[in-house]
C-alpha cells in the first residue's frame, strides 16, 4: 500500500541512483496527469462510495463498540512487537552479513523470500507445532509470526540502505578511531541506516495492521479480524470501520515518516515521503543481480 521514498544525495558514495530521464523541456507531460487521474479515480471512487454508504453516524457508532478499542490496541501492540523485534534481529544480522560474509548475502536474500513464497497456513501450522508452551495462546506468538512475515521486506529495505553508503569504510574509520563494535553500530551504522529502518518500520506496521489470515487462524481479535467479524452484523458500520482502519493506518504511517525523517532531513540525509516510489531501493529490489 504505502511505499517509501528515499533519495540519497551524498557526494562521494558510489551507487548513483538511476535517474529517470527528465521530462523534456518543451513538451508538457500530459500522460503523467492522465495516469495520475486514472489512478486517483481507481482509489478515490470506491472510497467515496464507501463514505456515502456508511454515512457519518456509522463512524460514531463504530467507536462506541467495546471490542473496537481492544482490537485496535491489540493491533498496535502487535505492530510494536513486530517492528522492534524485526529491527533488533535484522539490523545487526544484515550489517554483519554485509561486512563479513558478503557471499552469504545472496543466500540470505533467498531465505528471506521464503515467508512470501509459502502460504501462511503452512507457516502457522508449522509454527504452532514447534512453538514453546509459554507462547501459545499469547499475542506474542502472533507478534513472532509477523516478524517472520516482515522479514523479506525488512531485509530488502536494509539491503538497499547498506548499498547507499560506504559502510565498510565508515566502519573501519570508526574502528581506527577507537570505537568498538557496539559503538560503531550505534553511532555510525544505525544513524546512516535511518531511512532504511524507517522504510522497514513503515512496511512492518502496514503489514501488521492489515494482516487477516494468520490472526484469524490463530483466533486473535486484531483490528482486521474485528472488522470482518463485525461486517456480518451491520453493513454501514463495518464499512465505516474499514474506512477508519484505512485512515488510522495511513495517519500512523504518516506520523512515523514525519517524525522519522525530520532529523534526517536536517542533517541532509535521505528524505522520506509517503506515497512516492523510491529510486534507489526499487532499483536494488527489482534486480536479481
Amino acid at each position: 500500500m504505502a511505499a517509501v521514498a528515499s533519495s540519497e544525495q551524498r557526494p562521494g558514495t558510489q551507487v548513483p541512483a538511476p535517474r529517470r530521464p527528465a521530462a523534456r523541456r518543451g513538451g508538457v507531460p500530459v500522460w503523467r496527469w492522465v495516469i495520475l487521474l486514472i489512478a486517483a479515480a481507481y482509489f478515490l471512487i470506491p472510497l467515496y462510495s464507501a463514505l456515502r454508504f456508511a454515512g457519518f453516524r456509522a463512524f460514531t457508532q463504530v467507536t462506541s463498540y467495546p471490542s473496537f478499542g481492544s482490537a485496535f490496541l491489540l493491533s498496535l501492540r502487535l505492530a510494536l512487537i513486530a517492528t522492534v523485534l524485526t529491527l533488533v534481529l535484522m539490523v545487526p544480522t544484515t550489517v554483519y552479513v554485509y561486512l563479513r560474509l558478503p557471499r552469504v548475502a545472496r543466500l540470505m536474500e533467498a531465505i528471506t523470500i521464503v515467508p512470501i513464497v509459502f502460504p501462511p497456513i503452512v507457516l502457522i501450522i508449522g509454527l504452532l507445532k514447534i512453538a514453546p508452551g509459554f507462547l501459545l495462546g499469547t499475542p506474542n506468538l502472533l507478534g513472532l509470526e509477523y516478524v517472520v512475515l516482515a522479514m523479506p521486506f525488512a531485509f530488502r529495505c536494509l539491503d538497499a540502505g547498506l548499498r547507499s553508503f560506504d559502510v565498510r569504510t565508515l566502519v573501519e574509520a570508526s574502528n581506527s578511531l577507537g570505537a568498538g563494535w557496539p559503538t560503531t553500530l550505534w553511532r555510525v551504522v544505525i544513524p546512516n541506516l535511518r531511512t532504511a529502518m524507517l522504510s522497514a518500520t513503515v512496511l512492518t506496521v502496514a503489514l501488521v495492521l492489515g494482516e487477516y489470515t494468520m490472526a484469524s487462524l490463530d483466533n486473535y481479535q486484531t483490528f482486521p479480524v474485528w472488522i470482518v467479524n463485525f461486517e456480518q452484523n451491520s453493513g454501514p458500520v463495518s464499512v465505516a470501520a474499514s474506512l477508519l482502519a484505512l485512515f488510522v493506518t495511513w495517519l500512523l504511517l504518516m506520523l512515523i515518516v514525519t517524525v522519522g525523517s525530520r532529523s534526517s532531513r536536517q542533517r541532509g540525509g535521505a528524505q522520506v515521503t509517503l506515497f512516492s516510489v523510491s529510486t534507489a531501493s526499487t532499483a536494488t529490489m527489482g534486480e536479481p543481480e
Partner: protein
Amino acid sequence: MTTNTAADAVASLGRAGSAGAPVGLHGLSRSFGAVRALDGLSLDIAPGEFVALLGPSGCGKTTALRIVAGLQTADSGTVTVDGKDVAPVPAARRDMGMVFQSYSLFPNMTALENVGFGLRMRKLNSASRTRKAAELLDMVGLSPQARQYPHQLSGGQQQRVALARALAIEPRVLLLDEPLSALDAKVRLQLREQIRTLQQRLGTTTLFVTHDQEEALSMADRVGVMRAGRLEQVAAPSELYSRPATVFVAEFVGTMNRIPGDYDGQDEVSVLGSVVPLAGDRPVGLTGAVDVLIRPEGLQVDAASGGNGIVTDLTFLGSLTRVTVLLSGDVQVKVDKPSPAAASLAPGTSVQVQVAGTEPVLVAVPGGSGQPRLS
C-alpha cells in the same frame, strides 16, 4: 572562544607527547586466494619519519597499510610499534590515525563532530572535545565549516576534515592511503604541502601510500618503491632518482630511456659510441646485446649532418626543452637540453646523440621490462 591560532593548536598537541614512535614491518605476507598481495614486505620507519610507499595499482600498498592499522591480518610477518609486536592489539586500540582513499567522514555528523569522534571514544568530556576538535579544524583551515555536514563540503575539505580527525587522537602513527587521489590537481598540490607541513610540526611517524611518484618524491623523507607485494628499494627521493637499485625502480621513477648497447659481462657497457661503468651488481646471464638505461639529462644532443638520429618532437619545459629523437634501429630517446640551445633543433633536423658524462648505468634484458637477476 575557539579562535586559537594554528600554532597554538600544534603546541597543545605536541605537549601531549604525540611525537612519533618507530614502526617496523617485518616480512609481511598476505594472499587473497591465488593473489599474493604482499610477499615478504619489510620496512623500518624512524620516529617522526615520513615514508611513502609508491607502486603501481594492485601492488599491495593498501593491504600493507591496512595490516599496520589492524584492519586486516597478515598471513605471516609482524608489525612493531615502539619495538612491540602489535598483532594482539585490535584496530580500535592501536592509536593509529588513518585517512582513507575514499571519502570516509561520517555523514550523520558535522565536521566538528567527525573530528571529535575519536576524542569521544577516548572519553574526553564534551567541552574539551569541542575545544580540541575546533583547534584541529582550525589547523587544517576549516573553522568556518565546523558546523557543516560532509555533504556540504567539497572533496578537498572532506579530506582535510578526515586528516584533522585522524590527527585529533594524537596517533602514534599516521596512515594515509592515497588521500589526495580523488581530488583535482590544484587542490592536490595545496594539500600536499599542508599535510607535509603539519606532519613536520607534529612529528608524527607517517606512512603514506600513493601511486603518484611526484607526490611521493615531493612529500616523503624516504620512498619505498613496491612491486608485486615486495619492496624494490627504499631511499631518499634524490637517491631513488639518481641511483635506482633496480630496472623496475629506474623505469617507474622519472623518465628513463632504453638504448641498445653491448655489455662485456664485466663492469662496463658500451652505448652510443661511449663506454660507461655499470651501476650496481653484475647481472647474471646477461652479456652481449642489452638495453642501457639512461635518463634524459644523461644524454647530449647536437645538430650534426649525417648524425645518428632525427629530431621528431620538442617539449618545452621552461629552462629545459625535452628533445625526442628517433635513433637508427627505430629507438626513440628523450634528451634534455637547455631551451636556448634547443631552439635550433626543429623536428626533422639530423642530430648526434651521445652519452654525457660517465655516470654508472643499469642494463636490462633487451626489449623486456623485466629486471635481470642479480648475482
